[in-house]
């Protein structure tokens, strides 16, 4: 932005041009920041899910039910499908 700001002629007094482009980039940055925040939530949820799945697999092993080998038992008793490739 500094390069483009320097490209503006000094005598025109047109801060409006800089303002318009800066507003656009700020808007874009705000949107990207919101997206990044949402993705960090997804990452956190994914980590939680992974931890709980591993925990439940370990609990199954200790209770002697054994690993399900690609399919695990949900709380509602449904057998899960294999993860799509």
């Amino acid at each position, binding site marked *: 932005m500094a390069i*483009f700001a320097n*490209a*503006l*002629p000094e005598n*025109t007094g*047109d801060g*409006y*041009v800089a*303002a*318009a*482009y800066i*507003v*656009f980039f700020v*808007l*874009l940055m705000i*949107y990207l920041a919101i*997206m990044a*925040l*949402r*993705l960090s*939530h*997804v990452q956190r*949820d*994914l980590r939680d*899910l992974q931890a*709980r*799945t591993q925990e*439940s697999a370990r609990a199954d092993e200790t209770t002697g039910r054994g690993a399900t080998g690609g399919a*695990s038992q*949900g*709380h*509602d008793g*449904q057998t*899960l*499908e294999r993860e*799509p490739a």
Partner: protein
Amino acid sequence: MNASSRHPAGSTEIDHRPPGDGERASRPSVPGLRTLSILTVAAMGIALCLVFFYAPIELEEGLLQKIFYLHVPLAIVSLCGFVLGGIMAIAHLRTRDRSWDLRSYVTIHMSLIFGVGVLLTGSIWARGSWGHWWVWSEPTLVSYLIVFLLYATYQPLRFAIEDPERQARYASVFAIVAGAFVPLNFLAVRLSTSYLHPRVLGSASNLPGSMRFTFLVSLVAIALLFATLCSYELTAKRTRMLLRSRSRILGYQ
């Protein structure tokens, strides 16, 4: 699960489980997203360089005219996005495939964000050129504001409906009707005789070659940005839905 389950952060999510095969439709797919992103960054860089270092300064408007390389492409892309959202809604109603509804939602959502950019950059230009932030007697400005406000009601309408089937269907009907209104509105403004707002395209435009080239590159750059951000949004939504579906199956939700 409700049609609009509430996200912990407060945002509202759409439930796009298609009847029968939820896994297939909610599977995140990112083919070409990296290429699209690189192309967008390159196009934006080239467009900015052309705007500030190649395009000549206009005699009447001076440097202020350079706002048009941003404002007009944003307006064109956002209006096309609204129409595209309507076309995708037609595809949804025809095929009953919920992924079309998701695409329509994301396209309209992105067009609204671009619409904010149009209104802000347009107001800045109007202030510099006319001395006013907004001119209510100008049909181009008011008609765009009407379209923007019309689409601003899309999300509240959508998330006011709990049932996912009805939500998707009503949102599609809204998107089609509003999408049809956009070209009609544009045509009505074009036919109006008394306007102050300059014409960039069409017979009233007399842009020299270098300005036209810069404008077209800017238009392509903004269109690529729109496509990239839509792809990001779609991928993020599909990933979230897939994650939620896994959690639900595992009984964690």
